[in-house]
């Protein structure tokens, strides 16, 4: 289960980012196969694979593709979300740097399925080296004739804003605006980039597609759980012996991931808490890590798989201080469009700060919980819900640590 390396199979080769290396290991064969398939058959194969979006929301990929309106005759766009910014996540950086052609091949196949003639790849502005690598691969793919024959790729660089990872914020940004998310519906598949039907998918999601076409949806489905196929790349950081990116079946447990792959907990060696899916995922206590890492497994555990960014905290870590860092992030990144998010993220940050600085008041914890809960579900996008996850879970699960600071 843990030995399966599909996306990362070439990562150890120093030349893994080159077209020559990619082709030498079977690259672009799936694209050749897909060209003989009807677009709908490609989508069916992806549906059968139980591939679910790996950017955060976990939506079934084949189903999303099937939402492109059937009668639509104008342009359709494929947009790749390479705005990786969820704290604790770094897998897309590896994919862009070490296997950019896998993404390009996946894009060619996905574009055929949804009948897109243009693909945009939105790379976060800070990722300069990943952008250079990917851009070089795009040029190789044009020179080799994979691109430019019915499908073009535009590489677009962001300019620093976490919210542009949210798919409609990303679309606004791609359109040359500030990255304000848009009200849904209409969903991007109906009315997305530049007003046209658009599929937004994560780098890792699309990098899986060539393997699914090559080896079949059933093969991929069997790698995972009943409701989610495949492996995924787990970004593991914090207090572990071997932080890094690990590919494993989504059916791996959090305990296996921490102990077997990442070498166990460091610090004082005893686990206090772990964030399993990027900073927006509610924290789990040490006694809650016997869960599988698939979308439904973590949802049933009251948290989320998100971007699979796993941040490990040992007993010596102060949870209030960790929440302060997280709350500062959400206060800084709120785009300001929706009042509950703009106001709550700012005020909650200030309240957590005063608690950590020893100026907390008795009623502060309940005020934070109340404010957090009231805003949940009321905003245009899921950013605020992603902030509420840590606010509630850190305080509810480690309340005594906060109270100790207030009592001082």
């Amino acid at each position: 289960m843990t030995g399966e390396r599909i996306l990362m199979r070439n990562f150890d080769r120093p030349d893994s980012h080159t077209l020559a290396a990619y082709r030498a290991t079977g690259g672009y064969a799936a694209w050749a196969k897909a060209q003989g398939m009807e677009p709908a058959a490609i989508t069916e194969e992806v549906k059968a694979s139980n591939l679910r979006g790996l950017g955060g929301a976990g939506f079934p990929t084949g189903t999303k593709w099937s939402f492109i309106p059937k009668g639509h005759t104008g342009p359709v766009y494929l947009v790749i979300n390479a705005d990786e910014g969820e704290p604790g996540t770094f897998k897309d950086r590896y994919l862009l740097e070490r296997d950019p052609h896998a993404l390009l091949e996946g894009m060619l196949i996905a574009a055929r399925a949804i009948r897109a003639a243009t693909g945009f790849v939105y790379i976060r502005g800070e990722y300069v080296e990943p952008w250079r690598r990917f851009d070089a691969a795009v040029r190789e793919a044009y020179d080799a004739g994979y691109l430019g024959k019915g499908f073009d790729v535009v590489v677009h660089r962001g300019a620093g804003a976490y919210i542009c990872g949210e798919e409609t914020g990303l679309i606004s940004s791609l359109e040359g605006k500030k990255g304000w998310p848009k009200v849904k519906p209409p969903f991007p598949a109906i009315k997305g980039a530049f007003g046209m039907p658009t599929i937004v998918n994560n780098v890792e999601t699309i990098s899986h597609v060539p393997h699914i076409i090559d080896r079949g949806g059933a093969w991929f489905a069997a790698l995972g759980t009943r409701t989610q196929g495949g492996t995924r790349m787990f970004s593991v950081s914090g207090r572990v012996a071997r932080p890094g990116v690990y590919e494993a079946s989504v059916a791996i447990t959090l305990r296996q991931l921490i102990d077997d792959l990442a070498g166990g907990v460091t610090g004082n060696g005893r686990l206090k808490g772990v964030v399993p899916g990027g900073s927006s995922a509610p924290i789990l206590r040490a006694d809650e890590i016997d869960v599988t890492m698939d979308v439904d497994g973590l949802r049933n555990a009251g948290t989320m798989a998100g971007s699979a960014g796993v941040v490990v905290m040992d007993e010596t870590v102060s949870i209030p201080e960790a929440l302060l860092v997280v709350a500062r992030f959400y206060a800084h990144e709120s785009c300001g469009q929706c009042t509950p998010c703009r106001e709550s993220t700012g005020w909650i940050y200030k309240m957590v700060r005063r608690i950590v600085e020893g100026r907390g008041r008795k009623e502060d914890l309940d005020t934070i919980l109340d404010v957090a809960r009231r805003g949940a579900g009321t905003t245009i996008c899921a950013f605020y819900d992603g902030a509420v996850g840590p606010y509630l879970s850190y305080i509810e699960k480690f309340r005594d640590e906060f109270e100790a600071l207030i009592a001082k």
Partner: protein
Amino acid sequence: MTASRVQFSGEQLAEVRRLQALYPDRRGALLPVLHMAQDAFGWVSLDVEEYVAELFDLSPAHVHEVVTFYTLYFRQPKGRHVVAVCHNLSCHLAGAKTILGHLKTRLGVEVGATTPDGRVTLLAVECLCACERAPMMQVDDRYELDLTPEKVDRILEGLR
């Protein structure tokens, strides 16, 4: 409208046109062109905003709204080098505070400020997504990983 005091070269203007043609609506090229403008003029002044607005036939107010939304556009002159230390969760757990404190002392400036000689602008930033090598920072285009105060000193020595 006042005459702009900034101007792209002919070659740069051709690049602007090429970028604009990549998008179904040329406005899509606004962020890339603002990156170009910052590279060319050092930072994004109101004059630069106005100039870019003209190139897109947009209002300067729209361009201003975009420029102020994103963190990578500098609205004041920056140092010859930008040192941006991640202070998000994994870097926090790995001692980002020590690294930031060390940089403040060594450079003699607070976060957000530029050294008087114009050499370095110091920033604290949110997750740069290299958490496996925390604590880390970005120095201009490069990621500097697995930082220690000693390593930071060596990196600073290389910045002229």
